[in-house]
């Protein structure tokens, strides 16, 4: 089984990936997912995270089958 990872917007361009499927082995939290996605980069405070389409923090537990997303600050709406 696995974790589905999604990456959006400027973060996707910076990391050069829009996501991946990761084996769940050794992954307990959102921070663990980030360590696999970008092993050479600390998880910056400006990166937003979601688990199963709800906002989450880095220490939130992740289990088999979860969808984990990383993205920059949102800029919808209008001027």
């Amino acid at each position, binding site marked *: 089984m696995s974790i589905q990872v*999604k990456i959006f*917007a400027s973060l996707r361009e910076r990391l050069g990936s829009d996501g991946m499927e990761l084996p769940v082995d050794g992954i307990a939290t959102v921070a663990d997912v980030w360590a696999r996605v970008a092993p050479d980069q600390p998880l910056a405070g400006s990166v937003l995270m979601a688990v199963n*389409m709800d906002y989450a923090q880095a220490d939130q537990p992740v289990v088999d089958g979860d969808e984990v997303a990383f993205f920059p600050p*949102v*800029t*919808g709406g*209008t001027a």
Partner: protein
Amino acid sequence: MTVRITAEPFDPYAELAGYTPRGEANRIGAAATFIGFMRDLNEGDDITTMELEHYPGMTEKALEKLRDEAVKRWELADALIVHRVGKLSPTDPIVLVAAWSGHRVAALEACRFLIEELKTRAPFWKKEQLGDRERWVEHNTPG
């Protein structure tokens, strides 16, 4: 109680004219709406086009949550959110929010809440094209 994300241009007034708010029409005393349009200027630079990215699934979920919060907090008859994604040109409507209520203050406050919260909570990202270069909008303007 509609939340709609559209990759096609939309006409906010046709959207409103074609929408029948929930609840007894005889008891609706107020409708407050906000429409955001794309401008050809941002942070002093000329913008030619813009691309709006979203997170399919989560964006809808976030907007529905927001709408439900507003409806509950201000006891609205109904609320509506329409948001554009994809490639936009200046003057294109980006977003429409509307709140229907028995009384004016509830409708006005809920409408403002919806657009302010949408900007900070709904996963949308803007990339601006400036002639031959482009840039991601890093943060929303305060007002």
